[in-house]
């Protein structure tokens, strides 16, 4: 194991520190986006993007730390990344869909058909069985 050597331990600690700093910086910038960006839709970009790399770097640091404790490989942090990659886009999609219905102020001109609340009902009753659409 590298950790048994004196200089090796320092090397791992150094890498851990770098990863945690990168993770913290990206998570901070992602949150900063919530305050700095102009409209609701732009603000959605912060949490879905900048934080995935932030959390990713923090989790790699966690894998490294627990794997070098001498208790074998620790990989269940991968699951956190997996679940984050599945849930973050879904919640962003639902938030923006709700925002389009409520006609939240937007810098870019929103598409007209998405703002029509009746279009959804009309469409869903016509195209509810997916087999018919194809």
């Amino acid at each position, binding site marked *: 194991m590298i950790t048994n050597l004196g200089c090796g331990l320092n090397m791992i600690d150094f890498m851990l520190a770098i990863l945690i700093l990168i993770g913290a910086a*990206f998570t901070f*910038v*992602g949150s*900063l*986006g919530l305050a*700095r*960006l*102009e*409209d609701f*839709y*732009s603000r*959605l*970009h*912060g949490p*879905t*993007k*900048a934080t*995935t*790399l*932030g959390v990713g770097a923090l989790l790699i640091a966690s894998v490294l730390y627990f794997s070098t404790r001498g208790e074998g490989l*620790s*990989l*269940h942090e*991968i*699951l956190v990344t*997996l679940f984050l*990659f*599945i849930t*973050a*886009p*879904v919640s*962003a*999609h639902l938030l*923006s*869909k709700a925002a*389009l219905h409520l006609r939240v102020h*937007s*810098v*870019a*001109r*929103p*598409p007209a*058909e*998405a703002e029509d609340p009746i*279009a*959804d009902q*009309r*469409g*869903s009753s*016509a*195209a509810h069985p*997916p087999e018919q*659409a*194809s």
Partner: protein
Amino acid sequence: MKHSLLPHPILTPVLALIWLLLVNSLAPGQIFLGLLLGWAIPIFTLRFWPERVYIAKPLTLLRFLAIVLYDILIANIAVAGLILAGTKQTRPAFVRVPLALRSDLGISLLANTVSLTPGTVSAWLSPDRSHLIVHGLQVHDPAALVSEIKTRYEAPIKEVFEPC
């Protein structure tokens, strides 16, 4: 084939792998339990997954995953830069992406990918599933963005999950 013993052959090893990651061990008992769960869960959730998932080209799928991971990395740096540069640099716009994908899985994968990659969030899916509305944070050329999404992400997804 509705009542087969193995309704989703791909889901079984995936669930077993997730179980092993969850318990964080590779003991033979855990592998057995993982395979058992991977076999039982698809049977009990059969009605939730009516279509059988079929991967046509595993190599294309791997290349697609590599491209997406690389793009996520770039997207993070690009969006972080935009946030730090301030709102004067952003040019948000909505674009319409006409969909060639038809299956639930294909469309969800594309929408997820779009949300995770450079400066775009999928905002709305038309009720007839013919197009996806995408919000871009910095759009200079809407047509180029649409064609990039179609060639870079939609084409490989279609190749892997909806071969005709």
